[in-house]
């Protein structure tokens, strides 16, 4: 029974959904009502997976706090903030129907989350700087070519490049529009063809990973 649920039932559901989506997209719009229903299920399942992720996060970190392993204090902070956000969000939601109507929730979001989040992305600039210095070395011809193209594109993107020499923009544009775009197009088309091939293989039951996590 479990084998049927693991394999045949998954084959059947996948096949049915695929055929329905293909038929609706390419041939008959009047099958839309069925496709819509299935897509709504997909969205619901996606939302459930978010809840599942949150539950898993709580379990994982609760266990770390319980065992008091390495850096368990961070897990404790995570659990505390998780509880605080949930409670203040719900308090606002129950009171007015909008979670952000709670002033503590708003304060946490505006004065802790926002600055931290806004800092996180720019700070990667420092790491990129250091990493580029260490990694961008012309050790062979290929690396040298990539290095030269990268420098031209960087100076093309920064206004200072054009201020120094207008040729940086011209050459940088050539690298981007003539050099890079055809490569990306090829990559996209090959990727799409690969996806179609993968889809057929999955439908025919030849992709074990898709059905049974890679094992028999």
């Amino acid at each position, binding site marked *: 029974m479990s084998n049927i649920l693991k394999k045949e039932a998954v084959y059947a559901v996948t096949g049915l959904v695929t055929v329905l989506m293909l038929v609706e997209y390419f041939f008959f719009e009047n099958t839309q009502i069925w496709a819509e229903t299935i897509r709504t299920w997909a969205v619901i399942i996606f939302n459930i997976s*978010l809840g599942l992720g949150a539950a898993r996060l709580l379990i994982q970190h609760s266990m770390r706090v319980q065992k008091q392993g390495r850096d368990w204090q961070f897990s404790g902070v995570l659990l505390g903030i998780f509880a605080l956000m949930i409670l203040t969000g719900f308090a606002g939601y129950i009171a007015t129907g909008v979670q952000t109507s709670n002033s503590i929730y708003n304060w946490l979001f505006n004065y802790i989350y926002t600055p931290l989040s*806004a800092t996180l992305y720019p700070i990667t600039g420092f790491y990129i700087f250091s990493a580029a210095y260490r990694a961008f070395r012309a050790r062979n011809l290929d690396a040298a070519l990539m290095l030269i193209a990268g420098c031209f594109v*960087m100076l093309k993107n*920064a206004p200072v490049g054009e201020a120094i020499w207008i040729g940086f923009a011209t050459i940088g544009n050539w690298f*981007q529009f003539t050099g890079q775009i055809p490569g990306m197009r090829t990559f996209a088309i090959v990727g799409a063809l690969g996806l179609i091939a993968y889809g057929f293989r999955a439908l025919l039951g030849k992709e074990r990973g898709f059905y049974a996590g890679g094992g028999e």
Partner: protein
Amino acid sequence: MSLGKLANIDRRVFYWILFIALMVPFLSPIGFPITISPNTQDLYDGVTGDQVAEGEVWIVNFGYGVSAWSDCHPSVTVLTKALFREGAKIIFMGVHYDIELTYNKLQDTCRADFANKVYGEDYVFLGYMTGGESVIAQLGSNIKSVFPQDHFQTPYDDIPMLRNVVDVHDIAGVISSDTGDYGGHFMTQWQAAYGTKLAEAGIAMNGSTDLPRWQAGNFFGVSVGSRGGAELEILIGELGEATTAMDSISVSHLLLVIAIILGNIGTLTEKLGGKK
């Protein structure tokens, strides 16, 4: 000092140099001239003039969170202003859990434009959605099934501007601003299937994915990162955050190129020294 040492400069030295160098343009703006890229020009042209009819409904999708405000938000600000000034109605929605903060920031950065508009009649904030490409496909066939109410709990049917908005056919165009690939999802499910006008204003890293789509005609325009935002600010004639950031971009990029050159001089010197 041997030139070979240039190959192994401590990274903390670079952190300090970069930190100090980035301070300079904020204390004393330099103002390098900025030229307009053809993809940004196409984007601006697509949301102004004859391209937008009064009263038509557009979607602005926030596919970015607070961490990408510096890259995405200036473009979204200009595009929102441009659409409002052409008389378009806008549906705001997004796929990041913190999109309410982004929506609030947009109201701040477009304060004068929002002041002339009425919520529910000229614009609406439908809120947060999840579901990847499935939810974009579902939006195309039935918007109300994804958002039975707006972010503020008002039922869909009670929102005046949405009374005649059912599916993709009622939407004139979509602007998606992403750190991920929701622009790509809109392309597959809306632009390719129904010919909906679509444009992207994503982070700089997405440029390599988005520009081929613009060249192929899938996107009518593309804004790439904060540079794209600065170009749009120039086009609309209202300089803002992105234009200010351009000096920092210039300084950091120039320093990076110098650091790369120094590192390579060091490596070359080490190699030549080893050969001797």
